[in-house]
């Protein structure tokens, strides 16, 4: 792949070499490369026709596990735009905020998401191009939104009118919103130049061929989905996307589709174990099993390797800001248990072109064997946060004695020796992983402060689990009339995994010796209550 090219180049090559091969399985149907190309090129031509030279060069894709989700992502890229994934299983208010903040001039929408579109585009002051590639009748929407350009399936431009546009070096391939501690999600700008080295390395490392079938367990609002789609399309393989219903029976999906590459959060393993889907030898077709998104418990790997005996297991690690994953560790039955700490599999070593250093709180490199914050740099280090230079300069810094900027992961790690893998020890700040989703407790607190008008708010990941927390509970200082009303207001603004399961009111929140809210004491209270 051309390193100055587009994330979509691998797909275009495969569509040329393997037009008759399946590119995607979605909605219980296989879609061939030539078919997917045709729809994507029509969407791209439509975007180019109605929004020539948009500013910013971004298209939102409001679609969920549908053909349009895939053709929309490709169509945006072929039009020369980065894509911004939106998800109808998120609260509408959050989706609306993402669209507003991204300032996209075009939105591709699948049929089931139409139900939310009115609430998502309300208040957008500029003209939008709304493309509905799988919908025939949109006259109602056209009547309702005369200020926007509304395009139905039949109005899509011909694929022949698509003009191949190569992105510039720093153009955004996708803009992904992650939880932010101020109550406003941050948009991570991932450039083509960041993601292309990732896709190339992964496709080569795993020896992907046009015979492979990869899972798509991740929603497109989770950046790990970029691996699923683009590593697949790089080599003419097929990405297999289970429906929401099928997500409940991943084991059957692996066998029905004869998947060869599996990629999920470790929580899925826990779920499958619970429902007895990890019997010995259940998944012989898998040749690779990859996990990422949260700490990987040793116990889960041991269960998985029995169920998928022909697969090699790797643990991947990386924040969105370093493009999907940037370190990895290969599980080895003989040695790995000894190098794992606290029952968690190591995160291994940086990808070949990435550099890692471990620093103390003054950003000075620590001695070998000492724990500290992980800082990384290299081609996968992203362009920073969308329209937030202050936040960007806080997170992307030049450490003393270095000339390149590094990204501060906020993750605490240790390397026991020069030949030893990196061990993940937890978050430096108050971020927790809740079933694989990165959650800033500060964001939850900020929303509750705004909605309640009360200042003393502390959110905690609770109950704690091996890999983070199972949910959130919150302590509020003062009095509030209706917790139920507060809960509803909060739930309208935050995704389910961030909505506290319990609200505890206290006259006074305990303080520690530094005069800060004493989180340890609050955790102790939760322990007493449970």
């Amino acid at each position, binding site marked *: 792949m051309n390193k100055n090219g587009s994330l979509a180049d691998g797909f275009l090559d495969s569509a040329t070499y393997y037009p008759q091969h399946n590119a995607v399985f979605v909605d219980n149907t296989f879609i061939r490369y030539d078919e997917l190309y045709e729809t994507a090129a029509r969407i791209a031509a439509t975007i180019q026709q109605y929004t020539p030279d948009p500013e910013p060069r971004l298209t939102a894709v409001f679609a969920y596990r549908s053909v349009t989700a895939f053709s929309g992502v490709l169509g945006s890229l072929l039009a020369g735009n980065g894509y911004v994934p939106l998800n109808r*299983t998120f*609260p509408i208010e959050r989706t609306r905020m993402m669209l507003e903040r991204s300032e996209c001039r075009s939105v591709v929408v699948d049929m089931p998401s139409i139900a939310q579109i009115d609430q998502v585009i309300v208040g957008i002051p500029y003209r939008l191009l709304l493309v509905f590639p799988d919908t025939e009748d949109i006259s109602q929407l056209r009547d309702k939104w005369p200020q926007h350009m509304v395009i139905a399936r039949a109005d899509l431009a011909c694929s022949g009118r698509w003009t191949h546009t190569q992105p510039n070096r720093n153009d955004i391939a996708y803009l992904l919103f992650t939880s932010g501690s101020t109550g406003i999600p941050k948009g991570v700008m991932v450039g083509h130049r960041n993601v292309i080295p990732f896709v190339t390395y992964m496709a080569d490392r795993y020896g992907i061929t046009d015979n492979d079938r990869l899972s798509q367990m991740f929603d497109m609002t989770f950046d790990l989905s970029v691996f699923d789609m683009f590593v697949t399309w790089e080599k003419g393989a097929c990405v297999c996307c289970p429906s*929401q*219903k099928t*997500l*409940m*029976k991943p*084991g*059957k999906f692996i066998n029905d589709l004869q998947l060869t590459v599996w990629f999920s959060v470790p*929580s*899925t393993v*826990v*779920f499958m174990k*619970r*429902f*007895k*889907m990890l019997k010995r030898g259940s998944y012989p077709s898998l040749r690779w099993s990859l996990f990422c998104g949260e700490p990987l418990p040793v116990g889960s790997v041991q269960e998985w390797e029995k169920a998928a005996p022909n697969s090699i297991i790797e643990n991947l690690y990386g924040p969105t800001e370093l493009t999907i994953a940037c370190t990895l560790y290969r599980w080895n039955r003989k040695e790995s248990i000894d190098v794992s700490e606290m029952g968690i599999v190591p995160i291994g070593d940086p990808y070949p072109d990435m550099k890692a250093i471990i620093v103390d709180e003054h950003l000075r490199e620590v001695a070998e064997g000492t724990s500290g914050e992980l800082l990384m740099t290299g081609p996968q280090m992203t362009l920073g946060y969308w329209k937030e230079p202050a936040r960007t300069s806080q997170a992307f810094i030049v450490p003393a004695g270095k000339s390149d900027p590094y990204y501060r992961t906020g993750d605490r790690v240790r390397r026991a020796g020069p030949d030893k893998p990196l061990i993940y020890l937890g978050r430096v700040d108050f971020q927790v992983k809740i*079933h694989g989703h990165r959650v800033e407790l500060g964001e939850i607190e900020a929303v509750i402060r705004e909605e309640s008008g009360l200042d003393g708010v502390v959110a905690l990941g609770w109950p704690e689990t091996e890999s983070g927390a*199972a949910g959130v509970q919150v302590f509020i200082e003062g009095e509030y009339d209706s917790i*139920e009303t507060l*809960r*509803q207001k*909060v*739930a*309208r603004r935050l995704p*389910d*995994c961030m*909505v506290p399961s319990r609200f505890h009111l206290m006259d006074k929140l305990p303080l520690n010796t530094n005069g800060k809210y004493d989180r340890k004491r609050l955790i102790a209270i939760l322990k007493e209550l449970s």
Partner: protein
Amino acid sequence: MSGVSAADVKKFIVSHLSKELESSGRMLNGDPPDDFDLLQEGIIDSLGMFNLTAELEEHFGQEIDFEGLDPEEMTIIGPLCRYVERTLRQ
């Protein structure tokens, strides 16, 4: 051997999920029909299902073996409640 009936299980599930749903301003009909699919109605996902099974065990004070529960029927209220009833009786 427990005297828990499928109706008891349903009552608990409905009351548990109602509380969860209230937080997002939604409602669960007090007596959903047998073929009511919690997943397709957007009430539960795999994480929610996982949590629900833990709540069921805690509430009925007994470990529940989900081995025999058909994943197709896992989120459909009638089969789910009858499965839990049968398992608790074993």
